[in-house]
């Protein structure tokens, strides 16, 4: 096995770095690999190329080919061998190149990754992280802009999270890797390299827990709940609403399974109105689940039904049309209007 590795990326004297989501993920992966030499990264083109989004950039150079594996081109193989490596004591971090290509690996995820721990009454742990760049808005061809996270949230035995900003990206990836459960880690690909989202990451801080949602902005007129790339849309909507004199509360779910809805319940009890936002199609999705649970928990607090702003129940359209498919500031505000006028 490789000897402990000293990263070539020096931690700067200050523990604060100004990072994009992409760079924060890269640094988080690096830290996790330094901390535990059982952590290995595997996937298509994650080595020399550093992944098509460069999230694994430089890792193979520094940690070697046995810890950063350019695998054969087959997703079931990636996940299925990761399971075996996990049984052997490794902590594999698998990269799926685009969310649209997770489906060949679906069987291993639902039949093995999700069930081994249960099947063995806890005797076999499956500490695998499956990183999935997801979502649209990048002007891509088919299969490169989807949001399949709801499927995994329906499968018991998996944990599912999504980050929306560099600080979370840095911490959540490390927390996911050190978690003993399998974690599907959904990354908002169109924000990877967003300069606007660059943020100071205090690497010496104590992070929030992984499986907790977070109120990002306080408000009282209505509550917006989102995750991943839609968080920014909601924050922008809240800013715009403020100019019109409406204060909207914004909650970043962060954990999609298990859902941490306590902060949402608490918020809805105050605002009486909830809009859930996601790029995924609506039917049998996370937004359905949130609506179902909130209408039950906050039955007497709701002054309007929970409204959903989502991708439509169509396949992802050709990307020249994606602006129509993707929830945007206007559709969110329109839903707020509807909720307030109910």
């Amino acid at each position, binding site marked *: *096995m490789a000897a402990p590795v000293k990263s070539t990326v020096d931690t700067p004297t200050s523990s604060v770095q100004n990072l994009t989501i992409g760079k924060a993920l890269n640094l988080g992966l690096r830290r996790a690999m330094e901390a535990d030499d059982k952590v*290995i990264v595997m996937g298509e083109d994650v080595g020399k190329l550093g992944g098509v989004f460069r999230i694994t950039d430089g890792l193979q150079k520094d940690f070697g080919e*046995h810890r950063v594996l350019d*695998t*054969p081109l*087959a997703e*079931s*193989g990636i*996940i*299925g*061998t*990761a*399971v*075996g*490596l*996990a*049984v*052997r*004591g*490794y902590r*594999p971090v698998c990269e799926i190149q685009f969310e649209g290509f997770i489906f*060949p690996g679906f*069987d*291993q995820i639902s*039949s*093995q990754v999700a*069930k*081994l*721990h*249960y*099947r*063995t*009454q*806890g*005797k*076999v*742990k499956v*500490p695998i992280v499956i990183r999935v760049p997801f979502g649209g808005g990048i002007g891509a061809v088919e299969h490169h802009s989807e949001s399949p996270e709801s499927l995994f949230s329906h499968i*018991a*035995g998996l*944990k599912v999270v999504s980050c929306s900003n560099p600080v979370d990206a840095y911490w959540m990836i490390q927390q996911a890797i050190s*978690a*003993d*459960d399998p974690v599907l880690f959904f990354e908002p690909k169109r924000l990877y390299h967003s300069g606007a989202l660059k943020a100071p990451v205090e690497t010496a801080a104590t992070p929030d827990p992984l*499986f907790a949602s977070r109120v990002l902005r306080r408000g009282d007129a209505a509550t917006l709940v989102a995750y991943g790339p839609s968080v920014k849309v909601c924050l922008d909507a809240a800013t715009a609403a403020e100019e019109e004199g409406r204060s909207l509360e914004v909650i970043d779910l962060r954990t999609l399974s*298990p*859902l*941490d809805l306590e902060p949402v319940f608490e918020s809805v009890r105050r605002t009486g109105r909830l809009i859930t936002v996601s790029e995924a199609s609506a039917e049998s999705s996370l937004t359905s689940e949130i609506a179902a649970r909130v209408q039950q928990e906050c039955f007497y607090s709701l002054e309007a039904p929970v409204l959903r702003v989502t991708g439509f129940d169509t396949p992802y359209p050709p990307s020249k049309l994606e602006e129509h498919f993707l929830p945007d500031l206007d559709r969110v505000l329109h839903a707020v209007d509807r909720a307030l006028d109910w």
Partner: protein
Amino acid sequence: MPSPEQWTRPEPGAGPAATAAEPTPEQVIAGLRATTEGGAELTQLLTPEGERVSSAMFDPYVADIDAEALRGLYRDMVLVRRADREANAMQRQGQLGIWVPLLGQEAAQVGSGRALKPRDMAFPSYREHGVAYTRGVDFRELLGIFRCTDHGGWDFQQHRFHPYTIVIGNQVLNAAGYAMGQKFDGKVGGADADETAEATICYFGDGATSQGDVHEGFVWAAVYDAPLVFFCQNNQWAISEPTERQSRLPLYQRARGYGFPGIRVDGNDVLGCLAVTRWALEECRHGNGPVLIEAFTYRMDAHTTTDDPTRYRLSDELEVWKHKDPIERVRVHLARTGSADQEFFDEVQAEADRFAAELRDYCFNMPEPPPERVFANVYAEPSPVLEAQREEYLSYLAGFGAGEH
């Protein structure tokens, strides 16, 4: 029909090589023959008549199998068969939800299982009760799956015997990953490989070879030089489908396309299976893996206790295979060579009966799992949503007991 070697480079010719729209009769016959006989390439050390055939290549791998050791293998097979039959009977009596019989495959399982060193790892499918036994898994620990009280209960690390895998093919990739881990851990090759190196064996059926996962397992193991023995028990049937529904060629030849060795062994010959598997494991431990073994055998019973094989196969077939019984040939050999007398055989039978009685006793007294078990061990680190569901259900149950309805 050209041989497969020729197929990789067609012979010169002025036009299309043949004109048949249907598979050629040769093709069909070759396919059929391949599934009813072992073919010329079958490795065999002990014939159905109990005669020891010598093999320059494989004899060294069973040089240590003296009369006592062979009696041991005989005993293993008799015990395993007896337990299998007992479990089958218990299913008929409603004590098990289902049973997956291994009848006829005792040699393939005991031979390959006994080839493993304690530090080697095994990934079974769902029929490998004989392998489980060789790994020290108590037969009783298998019963939970079939009595439907658990999904698998033994200690996987201690026995180095992975949980049963029901989704066909999945375990082949899992095994490939595990074997990669052995390699990454430096447990392959080296000067003292015979003492320290590890290998993995993975079991699957003839039908499984069609699954994408099995292919990907071949690709991965080949590309990463994983110390992995693919052990395919070709028992001629995937439920109702004969092997020619899965392949034109004998299955061991599948390895050709990946660049690692493939070999066919008489799966009803416990010595042959032991030798070939030992050889394959050594190849793997020394860094020459992976290796594919096709153990040519026969599923003597139904696919499972829910299956009715009379709907799809002739009893003639069964009769033919009875003559190739894996246990009988060892008995004949032991007797003929004076390595065992009737007393021994009687003793083993008596032991097997005790073994079965204990199994039965255990089974009849297995406790029902408590309702909390539904919610237990879904995660290593608890999920509040699930905890709430559990609390709600358990208190509902309690209230219910208290006569709420």
